[in-house]
């Protein structure tokens, strides 16, 4: 009986503590901190793990560079990696875990659009910045002051590809879309189709496929019967590689296009020689980038032994932007909430080209939603088994 009473007392005492007003975020100040912590949330397991791996490497490179250069105002930057497995249910748990850890000042992530959307309400409630280096879904930044991204949106990307075909590759008259039947593939497809109709590109077929399916010949055969000059694959690299390969077996000679989801070295290994001549758009390509990016690529190879990809570069920049914000705004006397807010305010103030952050992937500045404005898309082409920047780039969109 006495034990129960003691138990009861403890429960009661702790509960009373919990009853006190929730002022932890505002009144308690942080003691002098030697480390500044930033979380990186991405899929390190699951089907998108290949992306997560590069994100982690890109982030680690920036962390190392910052700390070797003396840290942020003398304080060490520490990254905490959290795995969302590319699933939204996991992502919301991870978001809660991060948002309520009062040592974490900002979040770089998530990668999948659905994960960014799952985290959005939680980050908003807790008041912590979510800066995505990979979510291109149109709606990711809408309705929250705390969500940003440093790359373009799907509607821009779809529009861009349609206009690129229309303006630069003028001999391609009819196009077909072959899209992954999920949020990414469909969103991109819809943007592409809308723009194709607007600018008068002749869309002859639109077929879907499911991820994890590995035989695409049925759909490819019916696309072939429509005889398109170009086929836009709106999906991810692993399926795209197989599609290109099987399309050649099916006797399709059309020009292939892909978007940023195809932008992975694995595309080349899977497709083999069939990948030759495939065009793809990407938020960034090392081939068309400046010396700073080449330097980053060299450092990346030194550290990790592999060449960086687009996602590594974008994460590298996202970590850089957060570090930059911390350097300019971090006040060790202020509360966590204020410091988190200061980062947000700093990012939100990057709203003109002059204010923008100049990273390896180009100039990043935001509109009112937190979407990146006017960041160009690049076009790459597969030549001799390598991604190289296409000869002609498209700079201006209608």
């Amino acid at each position, binding site marked *: 009986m006495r034990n129960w009473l003691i138990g009861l007392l403890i429960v009661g005492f702790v509960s009373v503590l919990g009853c006190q007003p929730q002022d932890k975020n505002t009144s308690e100040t942080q003691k002098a901190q030697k480390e500044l912590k930033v979380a990186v949330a991405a899929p390190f397991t699951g089907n998108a*793990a*290949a992306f997560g791996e590069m994100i982690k490497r890109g982030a680690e490179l920036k962390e190392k560079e910052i700390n070797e250069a003396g840290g942020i105002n003398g304080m060490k930057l520490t990254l905490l990696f959290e795995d969302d497995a590319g699933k939204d249910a996991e992502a919301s748990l991870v978001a809660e875990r991060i948002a309520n850890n009062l040592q974490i000042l900002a979040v770089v992530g998530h990668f999948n659009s659905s994960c960014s959307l799952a985290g959005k309400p939680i980050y908003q409630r807790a008041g912590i910045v979510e800066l995505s280096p990979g979510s291109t879904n149109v709606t990711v930044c809408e309705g929250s002051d705390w969500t940003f991204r440093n790359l373009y949106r799907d509607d821009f990307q779809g529009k861009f590809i349609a206009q690129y075909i229309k303006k630069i590759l003028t001999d391609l008259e009819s196009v077909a879309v072959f899209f992954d039947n999920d949020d990414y593939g469909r969103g991109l497809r819809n943007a592409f189709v809308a723009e194709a109709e607007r600018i008068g590109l002749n869309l002859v077929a639109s077929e*879907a496929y499911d991820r994890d399916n*590995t035989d695409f010949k*049925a*759909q490819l*055969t*019916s696309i072939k019967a429509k005889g398109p000059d170009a086929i836009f694959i709106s999906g991810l690299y692993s399926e795209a590689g197989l599609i290109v390969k099987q399309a050649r077996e099916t006797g399709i000679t059309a020009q292939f296009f892909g978007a940023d989801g195809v932008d992975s070295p*694995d595309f080349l290994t899977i497709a083999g020689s069939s990948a030759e001549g495939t065009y793809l758009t990407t938020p960034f390509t090392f081939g068309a980038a400046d010396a700073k990016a080449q330097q980053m690529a060299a450092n990346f190879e030194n550290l990790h032994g592999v060449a960086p990809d687009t996602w590594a570069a974008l994460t590298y920049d996202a970590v850089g932007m957060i570090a930059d914000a911390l350097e300019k705004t971090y006040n060790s006397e202020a509360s966590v909430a204020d410091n988190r807010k200061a980062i947000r305010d700093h990012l939100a103030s990057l709203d003109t080209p002059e204010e923008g952050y100049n990273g390896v992937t180009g100039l990043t500045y935001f509109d009112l939603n937190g979407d990146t404005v006017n960041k160009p898309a690049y076009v790459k082409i597969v030549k001799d088994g390598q991604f190289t920047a296409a000869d002609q780039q498209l700079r201006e969109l209608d």
Partner: protein
Amino acid sequence: MAQFLEQIINGLVLGGIYALIAVGYTMVYGIIQLINFAHGEIFMFGAYIALMLITVFGVPFWVALPLSMVLCAVLGMLMDLIAYRPLRDAPRLSALITAIGMSLALQNLARMIWSARPRQFPDETLPTIFLSQNAISLPGGATLPYRDVFIILLALVLMVALNRLIYLTKIGKAMRACAQNSVAANLMGIRTNRVIAITFIIGSALGAVAGVMVGLREVVTPTMGYYKGVAAFAAAVLGGIGNITGAMLGGIIIGLAEVFGAGYISSGYRLAIAYIIMIAVIVIRPSGLFGKSTGKRA
């Protein structure tokens, strides 16, 4: 018309693959009335084992293929021995849940060992006949790789051989006896456990061949067994579960239905077509198209 012909060929190749997998389901079900969910995983392991033998150990393809069959046969036998045999007299639900657990465990084991990243057989390690550029040219620019011809032929040959085995040999007779009534078969001096083990061995070896063929044609991933397995299971149900010839025909029908559904109706529902057929068959005619209507099909 050319498109129609090409789709038929696509469907036949796919159907041949399904048939090879479906046999494994149908044989096991015929004898111990268990849906061996893990059969799809055996198929996947077949592909990975051959891939590892070739890429890591440098074994030539024609050695790797039979070796992979043998290893998968052992795996199938072990699976029966460890997981299913102790449950022979337990409620059917227990065995079914065990099968699901087995499938789950094997699939994620593969994911841990080999990661989710799709892998391919490197071109230079394959016999030249299996390379996709070696193909019969079809009118309309399409090609039919010899590899795909090989898949259909192999499916046919193995089916005939299996049929002979079941109807002409002693062990085949024992299998049929066990399928009809395993208790009575046991009383007649047939060692049922051995017959069941042999069933697992044959089914798993055929599954391994199918796995390698799919690996050659497409890619090797940890989930390949799941998706192909479900369609193959639908084929087994369609053909009348327990009926080997039926499983083969069912495989071809499912393959064709999937291809034509995706090509002419709606590509988004491609994977759903097998489910629709399967549900329709179970609800309307549980004994399948080619099965005997025994009345009690549980």
